């Protein structure tokens, strides 16, 4: 039969199934393949909160969404073109995310009585029967059976055979998008190097899926998504948390410091620890502490000793670090604190995303304790900003907050990775040895950037004592002097303010100061806003977009830039936090657009808000 080959600019595929169905693996395999093929892409996994949520239920559904194209891609996509579902619960949970007249690839064996019951679907409502899917293009087949059949020869048990069914799906989708299966075969070979039977079975099923698609009657269309025109360079695919870890390693490497990580596991930050632990050959010391307080305190100890010290956590864990953060600020030693934000408050929604810890980062300490705060905008930007956090921490002898969130931390995208030699230099100037003849050492003497020296143990002649009590402005000795206290509070604030002179100016990502409206974002809303603003441009609506990554202090020119606009819209995945900083600092009547659903903005939501605001 003739197969039409249809060209597409962009496609969103959502793989969904039980958490035991290997959905995440299918998704990452398809991602790697797509990246190597040369498409721009963005992914977003959606785990259930449970380790092994009850089989077949809505709560147990695991999803992986990939958006790829021959054009630039900024988000994992709002709604999907293709929905792959392994069982009834996966369909029920995700159907609303499918575009009108979208395609469904459906495993019929996941729609038996038991599965319907577990998904909470009454028997009469079985979507395979009740015509509710009529408006979609549905391709249904019994994947379980097909998998078993293709493994008739295998010596594996049923359980192990059934585990291969995700490969059937993968093969099927590869065929749909005209792809080669080689990258996945390579992957399987290394993954199952010691388990030849399993390896064989997986490859067999992968190919079976591919060939099935090729030969079965149901499919008449094959799609082609041409490689994206990307800037020249070397690319790889990268996940946010991994990028954060690499950024930290790269910064330590450039600064010629050992990296010390002190932390306590917490979703969704743990993977930073896991990633760092893999690269001990870079001299990285990872310390899994007894709690978050010990994690940051160990990092403070290591920083005092001269390591580049890092701690990471998510909201509840960061809450525990407030007191120690105040100490680090007072000691004026380098420290990077990563908050991979998740749905809050309290334990909240650990596996969901949110941007609601911004105020905690800016204000969540006792006393006047200003700390620089920066935020990453995308998975690969985590690398850039982690590197920046280290640079600022070291160059300004200060703790620095880096905010990412579950969305970009677990998401992936292609990354034009830099060469070591292209990375900024980070200069560490430890205090030098002194002889008894030198005047006595003044640990709180500051340079022109208001920064004091890093004087580490082992350095002759610079022995000194630090502490959390207010300190004399030069000797660092305890001082209760009122004037000194005011001086110190102000100089610490000025030092942080001074950082504004050493970070990039704010720029428009789209539009100009003559645009009708400014969308001002921060952090991970970047992709959603960018997508909308580009779309509006094609519709002839000129919107400006600036994405703030340096939040405390804000870029020097931000006030100026804001003053050009009558209408400013600030979308945030929280109940309005960044907007309070903007209104306070610049007295502009910016308007909020808040989404607090544990998931990123859909482009449509932002578009609607812009259009509404333009009308007013």
């Amino acid at each position, binding site marked *: 039969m003739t197969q039409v080959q249809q060209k597409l600019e962009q496609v969103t595929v959502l793989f969904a199934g039980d958490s035991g169905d290997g959905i995440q693996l299918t998704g990452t395999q398809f991602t790697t393949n797509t990246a190597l093929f*040369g498409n721009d892409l963005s992914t977003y996994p959606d785990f259930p909160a449970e380790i092994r949520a009850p089989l077949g239920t809505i709560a147990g559904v695991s999803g992986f969404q990939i958006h790829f194209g021959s054009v630039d891609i900024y988000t994992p996509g709002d709604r999907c073109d293709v929905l792959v579902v392994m069982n009834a619960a996966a369909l029920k949970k995700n159907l609303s995310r499918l575009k009108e007249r979208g395609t469904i690839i459906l495993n019929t064996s996941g729609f038996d009585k038991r599965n319907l019951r577990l998904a909470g679907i009454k028997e009469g409502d079985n979507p395979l029967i009740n015509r509710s899917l009529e408006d979609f293009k549905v391709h249904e087949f019994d994947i379980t059976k097909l998998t078993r059949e293709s493994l008739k020869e295998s010596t594996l048990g049923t359980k192990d055979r059934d585990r291969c069914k995700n490969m059937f799906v993968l093969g099927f989708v590869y065929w749909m998008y005209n792809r080669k299966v080689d990258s996945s075969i390579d992957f399987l070979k290394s993954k199952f190097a010691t388990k030849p039977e399993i390896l064989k079975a997986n490859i067999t099923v992968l190919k079976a899926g591919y060939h099935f698609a090729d030969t079965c009657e149901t499919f008449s269309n094959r799609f082609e998504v041409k490689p994206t025109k990307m800037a020249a360079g070397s*690319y790889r695919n990268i996940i946010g948390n991994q990028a954060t870890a690499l950024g930290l390693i790269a910064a330590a490497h450039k600064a010629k410091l*050992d990296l010390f990580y002190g932390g306590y596991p917490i979703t969704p930050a743990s993977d930073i620890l896991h990633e760092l632990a893999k690269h001990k050959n870079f001299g990285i010391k990872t310390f899994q502490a007894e709690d978050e307080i010990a994690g940051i*305190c160990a990092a403070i100890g290591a920083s005092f000793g*001269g390591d580049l010290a890092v701690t990471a956590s998510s909201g509840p864990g960061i809450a525990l670090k407030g007191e*120690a953060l105040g100490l680090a600020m007072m000691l004026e030693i380098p420290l990077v604190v990563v908050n991979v934000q998740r749905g809050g408050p309290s334990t909240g929604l650990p596996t969901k995303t949110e941007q609601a810890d911004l105020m905690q980062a800016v204000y969540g300490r006792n006393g006047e304790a200003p700390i620089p705060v920066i935020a990453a905008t995308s998975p690969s930007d985590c690398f850039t900003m982690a590197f920046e956090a280290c640079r600022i921490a070291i160059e300004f002898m200060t703790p620095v907050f880096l905010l990412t969130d579950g969305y970009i931390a677990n998401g992936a995208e292609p990354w034009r990775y830099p060469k*070591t030699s292209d990375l900024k230099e980070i200069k560490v100037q430890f205090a030098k040895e002194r002889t008894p003849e030198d005047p006595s050492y003044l640990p709180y003497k500051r340079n022109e950037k208001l920064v004091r020296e890093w004087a580490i143990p082992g350095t002759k002649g610079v022995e000194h004592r630090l502490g*959390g009590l207010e300190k004399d402005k030069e000797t660092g000795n305890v001082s209760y002097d009122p004037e000194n206290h005011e001086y110190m509070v102000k100089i610490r604030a000025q030092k942080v303010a001074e950082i504004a002179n050493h970070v990039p100016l704010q720029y428009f990502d789209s539009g100009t100061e003559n645009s009708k409206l400014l969308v001002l974002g921060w952090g991970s809303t970047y992709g959603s806003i960018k997508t909308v603003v580009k779309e509006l441009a094609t519709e002839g609506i000129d919107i400006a977009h600036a994405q703030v990554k340096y939040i405390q202090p804000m870029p020097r020119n931000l006030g100026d830039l804001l003053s050009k606009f009558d209408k400013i819209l600030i979308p945030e995945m929280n109940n309005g936090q960044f907007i309070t900083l903007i209104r306070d600092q610049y007295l502009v009547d910016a308007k909020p657009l808040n989404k607090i659903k544990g998931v990123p903005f859909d482009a449509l939501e932002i578009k609607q808000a812009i259009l509404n605001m333009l009308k007013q």
Partner: protein
Amino acid sequence: MAKAQDIKDEVVKLTAKDFVSDQDIRWCPGCGDYSILKQVQSVMPELGLPKEDIVFISGIGCSSRFPYYMNTFGMHSIHGRATAIGSGLKAARPDLSVWLVTGDGDSLSIGGNHLIHLLRRNFDLNILLFNNQIYGLTKGQYSPTSEVGKKTKSTPMGSIDHPFNPLALCMGAEATFIARTIDREPKHMREILIRAEQHKGTSLLEIYQNCNIFNDGAFGGFTDKQMKKDNSIYLKHGEPLVFGAKEDKGIVLDGFEPRIVNISSEDYNLSDLWIHDEKCRNKANILTRFFDDPSKENALPRPFGILYQEDRFRYEEALNEQLNLVKAQKGSPDLDKLLAGVNTWQVD
């Protein structure tokens, strides 16, 4: 604690005075902390280390002012966290001689968790736990080591918390070195400080310290000239447990129960007595329970000296072994390779 690895060649012979900082001491006149400071300063030269290789870290409390008075590197950190900060420092810098100074509130109340975890990890550092059975700095509330019934500002009717037995707790937390001394026995304190420093692993030294303002005489039973010899027993490895003003009393074990006997009598002589063995955990556990109120009839004497000592690998050592191993396996780090990862593609 082991001596720092690369002792600088040019170490000049230092004296106690070299370890006196330029800060005025802010403890109350008569406070037991003075004596401890003095003994620590006087054993420092014996470490044979240059000042810059020594670090004192403390939490918050009267006792935690200690680092300010030592002319070494120091950090007066936050309440209860010196143990965690010290762990990180030692992991980062195994070459340093690290000393933690903490109070009974700082280490056993707010800081209890970091203390027990430090002990099990066995970082090679020294903990000086100043136990005055009171919160000094906050003006005299009862502490986790105060006796039941203690009347303080926060417990006008007497406290109702059964206290910790600090050394028993530390034994339970896998400590490898447990010892006790007292502010009023400077010679003993110096001896034990040196043993603590020599121990490779975490040394936990409880120091009974008189707070003459809020808890004066808490350890009177062990310092009063008349009584102290009958109430205290100074342990020596390999020697029998003898004590008393006339050295006439000893300890025997009756099944699992220690009992005081008179060795000047016919019934017992030295060879019947319990022989102190620092290496025996089961004995040490019983010794930590010599914890009677000394004013009680037939109270067991309070042990001073080293109750327990064990050799076990140190965390920072194991950490460095892993780092060296992986470096040997994977070769020197190549950042460009790391950044590129496994699957890359080229756009021209």
